[in-house]
């Protein structure tokens, strides 16, 4: 049977989470269809058809789909469902907001945030903030799943030539109107798929001090992250939060600065390849999972690290 992947995008480009989700779909079927619901998405459709793993791109292009209101998009998806064995969406705030509505319309139980696919009907998902891993099996007529992007490689964006099919918009009476989106502009890599992440916690003490982290991040071409404590204290915006109720990251290098390491934070970053912890409190639990720990005052350590990195660069050039 075919698998449908619901694309996350901004009407111009696919989010990288879509590419991870397509890789997950590859484990289920060779016939992968990509559904793009949006406004003025002709160019997006053209660029998406070159994804090698995608056999068909299904487009629903309508001005009402500009802002991804789930009340509007979910009936369009459920209407296509009978053609598919599985429907996948990224386990981002986009997919979390949307796919459970589809599950309600289809009267099936969705499986959230899968990190592995054992077979057509058996999936692996973390529970309890990743402190336990659950293997679940289902025999429902259709499987709806959100996919944790960091658990699957990004698929190639080139090499393919998928067919493009336009489907008509199904209007629903919706009482919700979009007002605005407050998106922080940054030249740094996206937190969800950066190679290096530099994260700050309560130890940074205030938002001004986060500038230290930005300087370090820029030296390493890293994304910036934060603990819930730092976000709750208003040092930095919610979109930077790493953890059980924030973002999941799995970079090659994660540098935790002034973060004690509550289990809820570890849930979001413990899949990182190399973890560095910098904290003056030797008892901080973050040291139990760090590959390299440095017990030091971060206000001294960070400028020193920047200096050392500059020295390394000088030697190399």
């Amino acid at each position, binding site marked *: 049977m075919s698998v449908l992947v619901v694309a996350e995008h901004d009407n111009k480009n696919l989010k990288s989470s879509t590419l991870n989700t397509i890789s997950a779909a590859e484990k289920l079927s060779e016939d992968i269809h990509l559904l793009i619901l949006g406004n003025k998405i002709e160019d997006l459709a053209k660029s998406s058809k070159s994804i090698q793993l995608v056999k068909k791109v299904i487009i629903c292009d309508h001005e009402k789909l500009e802002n991804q209101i789930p009340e509007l998009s979910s009936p369009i998806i459920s209407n296509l469902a009978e053609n598919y064995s599985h429907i996948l969406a990224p386990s981002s705030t986009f997919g*979390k907001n949307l796919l459970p509505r589809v599950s309600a319309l289809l009267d099936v139980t969705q499986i959230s945030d899968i990190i592995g696919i054992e077979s057509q009907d058996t999936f692996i998902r973390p529970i309890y903030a990743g402190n336990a891993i659950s*293997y679940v099996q*289902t025999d429902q007529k259709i499987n709806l799943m959100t996919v944790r992007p960091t658990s699957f490689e990004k698929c190639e964006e080139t090499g393919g030539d998928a067919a493009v099919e336009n489907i008509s918009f199904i209007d629903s009476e919706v009482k919700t109107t979009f007002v605005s989106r407050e998106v922080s502009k940054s030249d740094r890599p996206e937190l969800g798929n950066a190679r290096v992440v530099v994260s700050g916690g309560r130890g940074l003490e205030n938002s001004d001090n986060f500038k230290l982290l930005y300087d370090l991040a820029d030296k390493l071409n890293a994304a910036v992250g934060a603990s819930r404590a730092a976000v709750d204290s208003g040092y930095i915006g919610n979109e930077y939060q790493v953890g059980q109720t924030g973002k999941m990251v799995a970079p090659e290098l994660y540098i935790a600065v002034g973060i004690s390491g509550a289990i809820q934070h570890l849930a979001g970053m413990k899949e990182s390849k190399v973890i560095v912890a910098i904290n003056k409190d030797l008892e901080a639990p973050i040291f139990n999972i*760090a*590959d*390299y720990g440095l017990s030091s005052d971060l206000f001294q350590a960070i400028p020193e690290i920047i200096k050392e990195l500059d020295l390394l660069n000088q030697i190399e050039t």
Partner: protein
Amino acid sequence: MKVLVAVKRVVDYKVQIRVKSDNSGVETQNVKMSVNPPDENAIEEAVKLKEQGLANEIISVSIGDDKSQDVLRTSMAMGIDRSILVKSQNTLEPLAVAKTLKIIIDKEKPDLVLMGKQAIDDDSNQTGQILSALLNWPQGCFISNLKIENNKVFISREIDEGIENLETSLPAVLTCDLRLNTPRFASLPNIMKAKKKPLETIDIDTLGIDTSSKIKTLKVIEPPKRKAGIMVNDVKELVQKLKYEAKVI
């Protein structure tokens, strides 16, 4: 306005959970249980709406065994007027939870339903969205700000890119993020008072809905442990290790 808050009893967020030795699940006997943290934000928001004079009745609902009375009593100690416990011995999947809540909502006819954005035990993050679809009411998920004026509802949602602001109307289903508010502590006098507030019990079998599991848990295992690393003495050593040992910079 009448507000209904859905509350789940979960293993306390501070407990280091243990996987059962037979790999059938997670140990929940003899561990501290509490109100699911973002459900506390939902309770707090309902209490605030009542204090502001916007809500005249606020009720809480939980689904679970008799012990779930604890979390309902906690909600009443925080200011909820009365509670309903839907008694179920089995753990329900989000779809079944939403169907159960819908029956209670059809009966109670609230104008607003609040709940946490996810339960910290199964981390599904589904129930509010499903309920909103079943009721055909507007959905507002992961909200960090709520303002209600003349039946208009203004919400800020925490999304991966930042904040999204939406306008919608009542009735609505809203799921709460941890930053929506700071839940109050129940004072001792209020804990005593809560013991006298009404708590109705309904047996789930009398509701006539299919609450059977659609998902079978084959096994639950512990995640792979990270092996302990090393402490470095100074910044110089750290940078050298990252460069030449880990080769990540």
